[in-house]
C-alpha cells in the first residue's frame, strides 16, 4: 500500500530549497545549476543531496567551473514514478538546471527517461541499477545520449558479482552448495535474478527455490519456513524498497537456521545495525564501497562526510559526489555547458572516484572490473563492525555464522 501522502501531492514534489553553497556567488556570472531528483525522505536521498553539496562546495572553493559557481537544486522524486516525472519537469522546465544528478528507484528513472530526453538535459544516474536504463543510449543515441549512469554498477554486473560470491565464497570456501533466492517484486530484481540463477547453476550451485514478494510484505515467517523446508544452506536476499529491518528482525527472532546475505540496500545504512538492535549480526551485505583504501580518495572522503553529516555515506552519496566532479571536469574540458559538447567530454571520462576508477562504456554505463567499481561483500559482525569477506583479495576478516548456529 502506498503512503496516504503521495496522491495528495498529485503533481508535485517537495522542493527542498536551494541547498546552494554558502560561498557568495560571483556577481557577473549566473551559477551552473545542478538538479538533484531523489527520494529526500530516505537515507539514500539525504546522502545524495549532502554529497552533491559537499562536491559543489569543494569545486566552488577552488573558484567554480569556467568562473561560475555550482548551485544545487533538489526535488523530491519519492519512490513513485508520477512524482519522479513531476520532479524532472520541475527541475528542467521551472528551475532550468544544466544537469540532473540523482535517482534511486529504477522504475522511477525509467519513467523519467522520455521526459529527460525531451528536455535535452544531461542526466547522471547515481542510484538506480536496472540495465534497461542505459539500453536506449545505443539504440536511439540521438534521443537518449543525455543519459549516463555513474553509480552503481548495473544489476547485471551486480548479479555477476553475486554469482562470484556464491560460487567462490559459499560453494568454494564454505562448501554451501544449496541456496535459496528471495527478492522483492521490482524492475532491477527482475533484471538480476535470471542472471543470478543461471550463473549459480552453471557454477555447480543448486538453486533450491526462488521466490518474489511484495515490497509491502510485513510478515516473512512463511517465507523463512519455506526456505528452511527447501533444504537450502544459504539464503540470498535481494531487496531495496521492501523493509530490510523487518526481514532481518524476523530472521533473527525466529533464529532461522540459515545464514543470509545478498544485496539488501537498506541494510547498507551505517545505522542499520543499531536500528535493529544488533539483529543484523552475521548478515552479509553487498556494498559498493566501504571505508578502505579502495582509491586514494576513499578514506579522506569518508571521514569528511562523517565529520560533516554525522553518518557514513550510503552508495548514492558516493555516486553523487563522483558525478558532480566528473560533470564539472567535463564542462571544464568542453569549455561550455552546451549539452552536446559536455556529452562528448563525459564519454571520455577517466576519473579516479571514491569506489574505484570511473569509466563509461558505449552505453554510457559505468564499467566494472579490477581497479574499477566493484561489489564488496561485507558482513555485519558483533558490535556493528563491518568486515569485508569477499572478494578474497579485499577481505578484512573471516565470515561468521549466526550466533544460534555457531554451536
Amino acid at each position, binding site marked *: 500500500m502506498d503512503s496516504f501522502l503521495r496522491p495528495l501531492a498529485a503533481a508535485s514534489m517537495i522542493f527542498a530549497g536551494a541547498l546552494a553553497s554558502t560561498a557568495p556567488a560571483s556577481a557577473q556570472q549566473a551559477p551552473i545549476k545542478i538538479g538533484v531528483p531523489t527520494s529526500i525522505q530516505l537515507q539514500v536521498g539525504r546522502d545524495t543531496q549532502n554529497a552533491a553539496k559537499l562536491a559543489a562546495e569543494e569545486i566552488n572553493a577552488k573558484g567554480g567551473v569556467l568562473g561560475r559557481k555550482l548551485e544545487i537544486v533538489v526535488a523530491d522524486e519519492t519512490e513513485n514514478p508520477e512524482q519522479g516525472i513531476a520532479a524532472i519537469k520541475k527541475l528542467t522546465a521551472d528551475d532550468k538546471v544544466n544537469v540532473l544528478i540523482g535517482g534511486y528507484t529504477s522504475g522511477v528513472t525509467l519513467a523519467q527517461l522520455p521526459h529527460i530526453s525531451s528536455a535535452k538535459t544531461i542526466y547522471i544516474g547515481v542510484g538506480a541499477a536496472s540495465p534497461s536504463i542505459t539500453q536506449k543510449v545505443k539504440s536511439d543515441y540521438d534521443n537518449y545520449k543525455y543519459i549516463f549512469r555513474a553509480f552503481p554498477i548495473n544489476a547485471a554486473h551486480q548479479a555477476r558479482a553475486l554469482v562470484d560470491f556464491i560460487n567462490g565464497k559459499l560453494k568454494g570456501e564454505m562448501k554451501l552448495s544449496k541456496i535459496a533466492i528471495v527478492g522483492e517484486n521490482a524492475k532491477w530484481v527482475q533484471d538480476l535474478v535470471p542472471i543470478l540463477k543461471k550463473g549459480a547453476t552453471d557454477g555447480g550451485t543448486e538453486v533450491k527455490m526462488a521466490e518474489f514478494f511484495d515490497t509491502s510484505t*510485513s510478515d516473512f515467517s512463511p517465507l523463512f519456513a519455506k526456505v528452511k523446508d527447501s533444504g537450502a544452506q544459504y539464503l540470498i536476499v535481494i531487496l531495496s524498497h521492501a523493509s530490510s529491518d523487518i526481514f532481518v528482525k524476523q530472521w533473527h527472532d525466529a533464529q532461522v537456521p540459515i545464514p543470509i546475505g545478498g544485496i539488501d540496500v537498506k541494510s547498507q545504512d551505517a545505522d542499520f545495525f543499531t536500528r535493529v538492535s544488533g539483529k543484523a549480526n552475521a548478515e552479509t551485505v553487498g556494498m559498493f564501497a566501504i571505508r578502505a583504501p579502495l582509491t586514494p580518495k576513499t578514506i579522506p572522503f569518508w571521514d569528511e562526510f562523517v565529520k560533516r553529516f554525522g553518518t557514513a555515506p550510503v552508495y548514492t552519496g558516493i555516486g553523487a559526489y563522483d558525478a558532480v566532479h566528473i560533470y564539472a571536469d567535463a564542462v571544464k574540458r568542453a569549455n561550455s555547458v552546451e549539452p552536446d559538447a559536455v556529452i562528448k567530454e563525459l564519454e571520455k571520462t577517466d576519473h579516479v572516484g571514491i569506489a574505484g576508477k570511473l569509466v563509461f562504456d558505449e552505453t554510457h554505463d559505468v564499467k566494472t572490473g579490477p581497479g574499477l567499481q566493484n561489489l564488496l561483500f561485507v558482513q555485519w559482525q558483533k558490535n556493528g563492525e563491518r568486515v569485508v569477506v569477499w572478494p578474497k583479495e579485499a577481505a578484512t576478516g573471516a565470515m561468521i555464522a549466526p550466533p544460534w548456529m555457531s554451536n
Partner: protein
Amino acid sequence: MLQILIYGAVSSAIYAMLAVGFTLIFGVARILNLAHGSFYALGAYAAYVLTSLLKIPLFLAAPLAVLLVAGFGVVMERFLVRPLRQSQLAVLMITLAVSLAVEQALFLIFGSEYRNVPSFVAEKLSIGGVDISGQRLLALVAGVLVLLTLWLFIQRTRLGAAILAVSQDPEAAQYMGIPTNRIFSIVIAISAGTAALAGVLVSPFLTVQPTMGLLPMVKAFAIVIVGGLGSIPGSIIASLILGYSETIVAYLISTSWTELVSLVAVVITLMIRPSGILGRRAAF
C-alpha cells in the same frame, strides 16, 4: 502443518485485536472510523518514545502508551467526529483527515526512518519443531486475553449492558436514561486502546514507520465486512478465517498473494451476504 496452525493463530489474534475495536465503534456509534489505523501507529510510536527516548521500562511504557492513545481517541470522537455525526460521508472524511494528519505529524516529528521498539521477550521458542519468537506468542496470548476481558466486560458489567443497549437501539437506550454520549466516549477509548495495544505488541517484530497504520486499517476493514459490521463475534470469526487463509496462502502459494486474500473475501462477502457472517443482528 503445525507451522500454519501456530502462525495462523498469531495473525488471527492480532487481526482480532484490530478488528474488534473497529467494529465496536461502528456497532455502537455508527462511526466508520478511517482513523483506526492511526491508533495502531500511535500506539507503536508512543511505545517507542517512552522506551527509547524517555527510557521508561517497557512494562510501564506499554500500558501508558495504550492509555495515551485511548485518550487521543476520546478527544477525536468528542471534538471532531461528534459534531458531524449526522452525515456518514462527513464522518468518513473527517476520520480520513485525522489519519492523514497523524501520518503527516509522525513524518514531521520522526521522519520516515524505521524506529525500533524493544521486544518484551527475547527468547525463541520451539513448539513441535516449529520455531517462533517469544514476542509473537506474547501477541497471541495478549490478543486472546483482551478479547476475553472485553467479552466479560460487556456480558457481566452494568456498563457493558449499557453499551449493548445503545448498540441495539440508540434511541430507546436514550429514553431509558443511558447517557449515549458518554457511552460513545467509553467505546472509542476501548477501540483506540485495543488498536494501540496491538501496535505496541506487534511493533517489535514489524517496523515502526509513519505509514504503518494503513495496512492494518485495510485488514480491520476487511475483517469487519466479512464478519458483519458491528458484530464482535462476527469479527472474531472473520479474524480467524482471514488470519488462517492468509497464512495458508502464504505457505502454499506465495507471500505476494496474501494481500489479495482479504480483498477478495470482502468482495465475495458483499456479493453473497452483504451483511457479513453475523451482521444485521445485535452487535454481540
